[in-house]
């Protein structure tokens, strides 16, 4: 017993300094010619097939095309936001990308603390202007418009639907009304059922998959043959309702082919916030010294790949979507949707 305790203690003490001998050879981000980009995730994983992953792909593009040194830190507890951001800032990183609205306040605070670092807050509407912090936001109305246009082109019954969270949240309003406008742009006589989950509190409007599912199913029973589900778990519930009925569904935010695999067989596309190009564009601006001076930067909207519907969407419909996407990108076209629900 005694021998073994001594032995193990000796072993432990030998191993410690052995580990300590290892010197880290970190790139020197302080040098002007070394461009470093760090990403801090929201609570979750880097390969979440959603916001974290899409943003990281934008950072990786900067690694390939701009020769940036890139690294990420996954947040495991919300109390570590500041610490994880500081990890990069203290190592003199040039750009720090934070993912998701939950990091909004931590990003602003870090921006004030580290004025020489540029911060990109993905999906964070920044009300306060701090010169080195830019919120990356998206034109949800355009995204919804494209989804509505595609739905109108794919519908055989002339009735389409949308199941959304509360319209008191401006992005949800823009998705829903954009969808309506897009459908009517293609076919002025189409019947569009847009249902917002306004009848419950904020606590439930985005977390009510049962309601989403039953609402979608009751629409389908009335002849609706394409349903757009937008609003967290409530919207995902609508996708599941479509899967149950075998009716086409459209997801939201990221490519939901991966986030709701149960609905893969019916998922036509998703109305996306294009996180990857938006993130890359801002990093590139930072590299070239053209970073916006605070406030918000509006990224691009677009539709996700058609996946299982690649062969079922007619070529002229695909061409129309591409045309509309390009028109929004160049600014030659507007959706006409108000930024928020008129009071």
């Amino acid at each position, binding site marked *: 017993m005694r021998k073994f*305790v001594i032995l193990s203690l000796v072993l432990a003490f030998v191993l410690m300094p052995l580990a300590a001998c290892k010197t880290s050879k970190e790139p020197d981000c302080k040098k002007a010619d070394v461009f470093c980009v760090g990403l801090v995730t929201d609570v979750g994983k880097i390969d979440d097939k959603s916001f974290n992953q899409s943003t990281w792909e934008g950072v990786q593009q900067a690694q390939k095309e701009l020769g940036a040194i890139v690294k990420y830190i996954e947040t495991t507890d919300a109390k570590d936001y500041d*610490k994880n951001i500081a990890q990069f800032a203290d190592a003199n990183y040039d750009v720090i990308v934070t993912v998701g609205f939950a990091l909004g306040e931590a990003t602003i605070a870090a921006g004030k603390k580290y004025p020489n670092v540029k911060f990109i807050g993905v999906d964070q509407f920044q009300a306060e202007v701090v010169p080195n912090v830019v919120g990356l936001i998206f034109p949800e109305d355009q995204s919804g418009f494209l989804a509505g246009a595609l739905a109108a082109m794919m519908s055989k019954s002339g009735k389409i639907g949308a199941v959304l969270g509360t319209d008191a949240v401006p992005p949800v309003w823009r998705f829903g009304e954009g969808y309506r406008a897009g459908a009517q742009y293609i076919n002025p006589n189409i019947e569009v059922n847009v249902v917002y989950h306004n009848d419950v509190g904020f606590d439930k409007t985005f977390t009510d998959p049962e309601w989403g599912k039953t609402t979608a199913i009751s629409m389908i029973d009335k002849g609706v043959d394409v349903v757009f589900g937008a609003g967290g778990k409530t919207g995902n519930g609508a996708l599941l309702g479509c899967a149950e009925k075998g009716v086409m569904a459209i997801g939201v935010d990221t490519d939901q082919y991966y986030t709701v695999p149960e609905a893969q067989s019916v998922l036509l596309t998703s109305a996306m916030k294009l996180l990857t190009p938006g993130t890359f564009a801002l990093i590139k601006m930072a590299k070239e010294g053209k970073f916006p001076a605070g406030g918000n930067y509006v990224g691009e909207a677009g539709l996700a790949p058609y996946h299982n519907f690649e062969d079922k969407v007619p070529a002229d419909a695909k061409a129309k979507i591409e045309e509309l996407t390009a028109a929004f990108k160049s600014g030659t076209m507007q959706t006409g949707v108000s930024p928020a629900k008129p009071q």
Partner: protein
Amino acid sequence: MIEPVQSTVWQKLEPILSAAAVPLLAVLTAMLVGAIIIFIAGGNPLDAYWGLLEGAFGSARAISETTVWATPYIFAGLAVSVAFKGGLFNIGAEGQLALGAVASAWVGYALPDLLGLNLPAWIHLPLAVGAGMLAGAIWGAIPGWLKAKTGAHEVINTIMLNYIALNLTSFLLNGPMQDPNPLNVIARTPLIAEGARMPPIFPGYRLHWGFVLALLVALLIWWVLNKTTLGFEIRTVGANPNAARYAGVNVARTIVISMTLSGILAGLAGAIEVTGLNYRHELGFSIGYGFDAIAIALLGKTNPLGVVIAALLFGAMRNGATRMQFLTQIPTDIISVIQALILLFVAADAIIRWLYRIKVGEEKLVLTRGWGG
């Protein structure tokens, strides 16, 4: 003439060392297995462990952050330990902690408005912390009472009460207690009043008085368990409830007290996170502390001082993980894997005894019993 001196020192050290041998070797073995996993995953184990060490203890800030992580671990680890000592398996620390945090936050932000006056810190802070302890106490007492009166198993009931507590918390933070600031879309309470906040110990560092309190509470719990009649009763009921009954101990009462005490400590973990660190409660804070606490209690052999050391170790690993990931880009999940391995080796200590040829047996701890036990 040096020989006898050494031997007395050794005599004092040996029981401590032999009690700590299995946990220490479990940690060492888990780190070695973890190194192999890191290697297979394509990382350099030495780089990774160096990052872990540097991230946990490499600077004053790193040490401060390690204590920040360790503080709730100490409270929650003590909570689970006290229940273990009483022969009860409290899986409900997570729920007790969440409700403790909610109650503490509510008293912290709502009470001044409700009373229409600003409370001085010497009243407000103890009230906020006390509310968290009370919430935890109630949530711990319920399964204790059910066990004592009806024989319903505390494992089942604490798990069920976790679901109720966590969903109730989610409802409150998304609804009635949500920060009413129009720009806020996050499920969290408003900030608590200045008077309900613990002052920082060193400005600029997050190390807070809650850590000091955690150490003092650990001492207190050690004293209660080992030096008081109540502690003796808890331990006796834990070791053998029938013998305790014949000896005249009120077993039902002791079970309720053990679980209530356990709940108080878990609630305290939540209350201290709110008053000492975050100044509000938010979904996403303190996820899984109540479950990590089970591993910490087992690693610390349910000894309050052992729990402090185990909590510091777990806190160091969680804190150092950021630096490790920064340096090596290895998923932080590896830390969870190593912690799970530690738990595995501590729980199945026959593996460690066989691996390292430890022959000396030790007192078996009764962690929980079956129905009607």
